[in-house]
């Protein structure tokens, strides 16, 4: 349940409690049902924010805000405009309400929010190094003021920043905190709050064996017993998602050599024709590299969707950048294979649907990626788009000949 830490005695009024209770009822099932309930849940949690603020119930306010922010950032909900607004609310209220809403349930949600907002900002070229440094300082200030061991799991977001800036020292600091959180049982989910960020850490540090060992440990379910529930609940706790994470990290960090090494070992996994929904752009690239060209119709629809969402700003620029590079590689492979034209709706309204040669499609996505990459380079000194693009392009040399 999304607001499960709240009990009746934590909430000031019946009206607010009724809404909290309703939000919890909407999230009693698995995460798929949470996602399905988004149309009712998001407005409800917004209303809780409004009412909690009116009633000066700061504990409910910050808790709901943190959970709402996390929820709308889930890929299935992904409400970016709302996330931006919530980040502004945070800036308005976190400092003015020092000491308020530091409640009986131990976790301090302001630290959590600051970390999540920082992670969110990382994905926007509008947020430059200066703003990132400011937000990192806010996180550290919140942590010093409100944080405790409880909040070490929030270093998942710090690891994201460290990866983006290729900052090994920051990554080491984050890794230490995440290790501690994991041992002290403060990680919410072993896979999401420990294994996935640590995979990024190992790849940043070129630690091949450690990466393989961690992936294997999770795949064998050889993780501390207290976290084994993850395998029942977490949508990422499966072999393919973990291996996707590793390969993705390699490309994002511009480490094509590492990518080749892992891919050579794991490509069998990607060779089976795709099953289920073709809804993960990176996974489609890995599958195509391994020689799986099934679900072509669905994949082209996803390419259109990624393009549309980039234009409509429904995805973050960083995600759009990586996905554009994925499609650039994908259509290049098709072009190399001599595939004919593809019908795609790119760059505008319905009238723009037309036949593209695969080379044209690849060039279109390359242009979009380059635009975003240039923006990221301007904003972030250590992003190095050219390295990222090079790693994507070089991934093609590891493709399996069909």
């Amino acid at each position: 349940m999304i607001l499960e830490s709240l009990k009746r005695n934590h909430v000031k009024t019946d009206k607010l409690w009724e809404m909290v209770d309703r939000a919890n009822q909407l999230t009693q099932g698995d995460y798929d049902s949470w996602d399905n309930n988004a149309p009712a849940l998001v407005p409800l949690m917004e209303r809780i924010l409004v009412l909690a603020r009116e009633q000066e119930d700061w504990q409910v306010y910050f808790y709901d805000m943190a959970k709402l922010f996390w929820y709308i950032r889930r890929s299935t909900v992904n409400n970016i405009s709302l996330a931006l607004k919530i980040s502004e609310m945070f800036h308005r209220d976190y400092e003015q309400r020092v000491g308020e809403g530091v409640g009986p349930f131990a976790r301090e949600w302001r630290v959590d929010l600051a970390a999540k907002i920082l992670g969110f900002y990382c994905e926007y070229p509008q947020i430059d190094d200066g703003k990132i440094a400011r937000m990192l300082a806010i996180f550290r200030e919140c942590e010093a003021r409100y944080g405790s061991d409880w909040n070490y799991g929030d270093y998942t977001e710090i690891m994201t920043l460290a990866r983006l800036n290729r900052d090994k020292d920051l990554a080491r600091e984050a890794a230490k905190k995440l290790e501690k959180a994991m041992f002290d049982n403060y990680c919410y989910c072993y896979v999401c709050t420990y294994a996935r960020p640590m995979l990024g850490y190992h790849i940043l540090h070129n630690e091949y064996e450690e990466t393989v060992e961690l992936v294997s440990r999770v795949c064998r379910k050889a993780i501390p017993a207290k976290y084994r529930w993850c395998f029942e609940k977490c949508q990422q706790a499966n072999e393919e998602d973990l291996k996707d994470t590793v390969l993705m990290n390699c490309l994002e960090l511009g480490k094509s050599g590492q990518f080749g090494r892992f891919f050579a070992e794991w490509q069998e996994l990607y060779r089976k024709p795709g099953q289920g929904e073709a809804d993960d752009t990176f996974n489609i690239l890995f599958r195509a590299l391994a020689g799986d060209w099934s679900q072509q119709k669905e994949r082209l629809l996803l390419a259109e969707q990624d393009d549309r969402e980039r234009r409509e700003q429904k995805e973050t620029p960083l995600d759009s950048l990586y996905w554009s590079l994925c499609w650039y590689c994908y259509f290049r492979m098709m072009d190399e294979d001599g595939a004919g034209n593809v019908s795609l709706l790119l760059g505008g309204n319905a009238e723009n649907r037309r036949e593209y040669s695969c080379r044209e499609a690849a060039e279109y996505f390359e242009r979009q990626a380059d635009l975003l990459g240039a923006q990221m380079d301007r904003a972030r000194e250590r992003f190095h788009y050219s390295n990222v693009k090079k790693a994507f392009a070089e991934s093609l040399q590891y493709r399996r000949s069909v």
Partner: protein
Amino acid sequence: MGSGGKKAKKEEDFSFQVDLKGIIRLLSENLYSSGDVFLRELLQNAVDAIAARRELESEFTDGKIKITYHGDTDGQANLVFSDNGIGLTREEIHTFLSVIGQSSKRGKMERTSFIGQFGIGLLSCFLVTDEIVVKSRSVREEKGWQWLGRSDGTYQVMADTEISEPGTRIELKLGRKMARRYPEERAIELLKEYGFLIKVPVEFAGDSGNRRINDGFIPWRQSFCSGEEILQFGEMMFGEEFFGVVPILGEGLKGYAFISERQTSAATMGRHKIYLKDMLITEDGKDLIPKWAFFTRCIVNAEHLTPMASRERFAVDHALAKARNAIEKCLFEYFVNLSKFDVNKLKRLTIIHNVAIKSLAVENEQIYKLFFPFLTFVTNIGDLTGLQILEAAKRFPVYYCAEVDDFRRARPLVGNARVLINGGYIYDTKLLQLLKHYFQGVRVEMFDESSYAELLEEPSESRRREMAYFLSAAVQALDKFRCGAMLRQFEPAEAPALYVASADGFLDSAFLDSGPSGFLEGFEFGDSGGYGNKLYINAANPLIQRLARVRDAEMMDNMVQIVYIHAMLAGHYTLSERELGVLNHGLMKLMEYGLGGEI
């Protein structure tokens, strides 16, 4: 301690030292929730003694209990309980009356015949007196005995020549304080309450005269009894009129659940009368009566339950669960039958207990499915029953507003074209959300701010072209309020605009209240400014059509702001200081325009 080596010395056994007076006080004062129970314990002892004699002498049928109460001139009172039951031998007096934890009902006799099992019932008399006199003659002996027990833990046993017939007589002297607490009328009242169902006649002789305690009419003991008589019985027992009655019948269970005509809350306690082998145990039905049946008042006599030591509650065991299930089944079947054979009655019942039943239905699927069709909901086309909503939702989408204010705003726009339910009343939204979980093929959707866009019609292309300048001016004029503007056409045409606040509107205010944080510089939020709050301008409204022809930018700006404020007021929104300022300024401007020229 080490165990090796030889034993140096013979081990000694020691006994606990017992402070008898303290134990007696502890038991008598802490075991029971109130002093009243001494009357029940004495009644119970008498009933059990008569039952024991009946087991021994099958021809013995005229058991009776007599209670006398006489006040002294000095404010004290003498209370005497007599029965012609099995009585006690000298040996039994020592064993049963003088050993705490021992009871004559344990062992030889069939245990299930009695509810007194702990040998401590008599101790409850120390709650009201310091001295208990028991005079008893056993059916097995010719001679009677007297036992005098004191609250300091000492007792005496002596021969008694007064008692000539088998039976027991317990004499209590109530001091002034206790005589005031238990005057004759109170004693009668309590005895009637506890002993109402006892089959053995209980006679009371007091200063106010003689009377029978338990000559009440018990419907389930009659060979025939009409529904009317049972309802009268319920009225007599609980002092209120009832809407209906559900017979409770199960293994070792008899009784009735009376359905209250008054609105009640699920939290109401102490409404029932639960008897064990004819003796009142508790008025709290929480262990036995299902929580959802809070609108009933039950009188139940159980045979197979196990009392706790205080005899004020039941042990939580298989028998209790079985009895609870049996009662639940009786109640449930009754409602199911009503839904089949007397729908009007069930409907009346749900009208009386609408909110309470709703509170249960959100928690319990069975209750939901049973009662939902009869619950009532406020809608745009009048009050509808759940059944009507269910039927409608099978044919087309039915909408609900989660808040009363949302309903008020949306209602005039929706007209009668679709069903819009006011889900703002307690439990209604939850119930409506559950509808599609419990019934197949129904469409129930929340009416929120995004529903307006679908509900309000787009104006024609030519009208949109005509009003394009006006719309762009309106977008600009409202930007400072973090409100988007959209052109639509809707009924009633007299309404110039409709303001719909989104919860995001509050979030938008984050930008206004404290100035931007600086983090969002460089972000773009699209055409509507990304604002959740929207002003839907009614292209069908004649005033708006005239306003669209205005070309004076300042006047246009003022007018749009007034339209905005008017729409907020019409929608019952609260105006902020900024908006009040705009209203004042706008009114002044209007006056100026009025005095200076025409729009």
